[in-house]
């Protein structure tokens, strides 16, 4: 881990203790078993808000604590380790960033303090197919006298069940596939014409399909500039990608630690299974991949903090590097545990399942690989 400031170290310890005591994988299992509609326990979310994490990125003037992404990454890694189910990334990072980057002063005052307190759960509703593709936004927003009328559907919206503020990417011009002609809207989750359907995915979190049937949005709820929303959308998504990468790093790091522990305790043929080179070398290779993923995740978070010009590249790199590591680690976690790894009673499956959902969210490796190399002009 890179060199942390004193403040970051204190926060890291605080969050990791909390995860151990209150939000461990055991807690996740209880959530899975009780299957709440939102895909997370309200108690867990309340504690996260009490810890001040929902407003971590939000400036003090709007009720948050105004910390940077590097610090956020430290927190998310710890939450990833516990597979902690909460809308922190969707709301405290993606939602908050959308309002921070694109919002007017009024919009910031209206929403940020409530996102920071956790009263409002925000999420970005962007994809309309089972594959990430922001520029393929087709959901129609047609001009009305005083505002827009939204018509269409969004799918696999993260925390779409709990969200009471939907940040919707809609088409106000051009064709699906064009960058131009996309506009972002702030839509009240309770607005007339909004209908959600819960999607049960393997990670048991709160994903939803959301239908918009002639939903009225006033001009005051346009986020950013009409028709020019793609750049904002991409910036917001990059913050989500970097944050999710930090969470994925934590998931992978925990999978790695648990597997390494097993290599040191499980005996076969009269010796620890970790003494077999076939396993030891793979463990060392996972360690290497983890270190590389960590560098790229930190590179993306720092890139946001420093306003790097290469941000798209840095975020795509992070999601790919951590994606590779987590893919291999979550598979090998099961393989190296043998039969017990396949059982529901054991936790390995939770890591695998969450790993794949996180991989698909905000663009998988194929998406980011393409995006990365496109910056080289080939």
């Amino acid at each position, binding site marked *: *881990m*890179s*060199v942390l400031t004193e403040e970051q170290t204190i926060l890291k310890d605080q969050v990791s203790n909390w995860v151990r005591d209150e939000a461990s994988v055991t807690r996740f299992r209880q959530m899975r078993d009780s299957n709440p509609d939102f895909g997370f326990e309200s108690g867990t979310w309340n504690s996260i808000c009490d810890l001040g994490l929902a407003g971590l990125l939000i400036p003090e003037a709007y009720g948050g604590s105004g910390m940077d992404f590097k610090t956020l990454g430290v927190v998310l890694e710890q939450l990833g380790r516990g597979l902690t189910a909460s809308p922190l990334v969707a709301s405290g990072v993606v939602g908050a960033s959308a309002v921070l980057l694109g919002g007017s002063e009024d919009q910031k005052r209206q929403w940020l303090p409530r996102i920071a307190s956790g009263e409002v759960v925000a999420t970005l509703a962007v994809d309309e197919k089972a594959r990430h593709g922001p520029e393929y936004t087709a959901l129609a927003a047609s001009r009305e006298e005083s505002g827009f009328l939204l018509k269409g559907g969004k799918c696999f919206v993260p925390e779409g069940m709990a969200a009471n503020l939907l940040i919707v990417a809609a088409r106000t011009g051009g064709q699906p596939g064009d960058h131009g002609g996309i506009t972002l809207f702030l839509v009240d989750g309770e607005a007339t014409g909004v209908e959600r359907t819960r999607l049960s995915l393997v990670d048991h979190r709160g994903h939803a399909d959301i239908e918009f049937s002639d939903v009225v949005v006033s001009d005051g709820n346009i986020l950013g500039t009409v028709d020019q929303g793609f750049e904002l959308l991409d910036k917001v998504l990059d913050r989500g990608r970097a944050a999710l990468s930090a969470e994925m790093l934590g998931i992978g790091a925990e999978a790695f630690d648990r597997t*390494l522990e097993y*290599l*040191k305790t499980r005996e076969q043929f009269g*010796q*620890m299974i*970790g*003494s*077999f*080179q076939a396993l*030891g*070398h793979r*463990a*060392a*290779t996972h*360690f*290497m991949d983890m*270190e*590389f*993923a*960590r*560098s*790229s995740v*930190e*590179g993306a978070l720092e890139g946001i903090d420093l306003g790097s010009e290469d941000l798209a*590249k840095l975020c795509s*790199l992070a999601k*790919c*590097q951590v994606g590779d590591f987590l893919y291999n680690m979550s598979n090998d976690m099961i393989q190296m545990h043998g039969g017990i790894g396949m059982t529901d009673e054991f936790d390995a499956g939770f890591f695998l399942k969450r790993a794949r959902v996180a991989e698909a969210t905000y663009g998988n490796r194929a998406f980011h*690989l*393409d995006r*990365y*190399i*496109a910056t*080289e*002009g*080939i």
Partner: protein
Amino acid sequence: MSDLSAFRAEVRTWLQENFPPSLQNKPPSNQAGRGAKFEGDMETWRLRLGEKGWSTPTWPVEYGGGGLSDKQAKVLREEMRAAGAFNPIGGFGTAMFGPTLLDVATEEQKKRYLPPIIRGDVHWCQGYSEPGAGSDLASLQSFAEDRGDYFVINGSKIWTSGAKEADWMYGIFRTDKSKKYEGISFICLDMKSEGVEVKPIMLISGQSPFNEVFFTDVVVPKENLIGEKNKGWAIGKHLLLHERQGIAGSGAMGATAYGLVEAARDYIGMNGDRLADGALRERIARQKMMAHAFSQTARRFTSEAAVHGPSPAIGILKVAWAKMNQDREELMIEIMGSRGLAWKGEEFNDEELGHVRSWLRSKANSIEGGSNEVNLNLVAKRVLGLKGY
């Protein structure tokens, strides 16, 4: 900060006055200290830089080094790059042997060996490996018999890079046959000594950069012993740490010259705004990302080591570096198609003939300086705490 800007101004002026403009962005293909012999402006530049000590910027001034802080050294690198200047001095001496001497040698030895390394006057080679001692290096047999005030060496070394051109060798030799690790000493010897014979070995690339070295009753004065007798194993291993650190500080070999993207445009061509070959495009992307993540990791390890001290995790950088280089070379010749497999002839250009050789050379990356398997063993044992390695 103001000190640093003053230093930056000083460097800039010095470069203006001393770096021959004719050499701008024209680094030599080989460095002094690695066997290169210069003349004209290149030789002038070597002498001036060596005299100033900036070929080894952070080494102490009392031995002829630059005496700079890490921050100043960074400024120097930046200003050199901006001026199109380069360091014409390198090799085993500056990269590994010198730093090791600074850590463990006597005052007298430092005064004797360091200044010529700094100026690039002496070319060192490394005598570690033997026919029977590769990965299991400590099983080496070349024997240095203690005859009071001198040693007499018999035996042989193998895979010794640059031995043909080298002036001196540092190496590890057995001085006690009854103990494995505690019977090894770290000794320097003049390659012109009576009884030293060098036999070149041809590589798969058709080049012959390394050799077998035979010792027959070679007399070496006692003052050439570094550290104590029979305590050379620790010094030898310490030196390899500098080797790995050096690798961590480097990037892809030759990644600055003719790049993959450029080659892909030239040899494959575009289909609209994308490379015409989708599968190769994906592999180029993967390679570029690997190199990007490598440089991020090398930077992170360096800044962490400055605070927490060096970590054995550095071993993974060596493994990753080998893979990165090898993948890159494979990809390059594949992009070039059959032209990437050219052996010789006027039908082929220098890039083609050069890359086929660097591709073949890169196969050694996972063998030299500790093989991949051996490095993974080390990481499994020292970083992960696994038993049996």
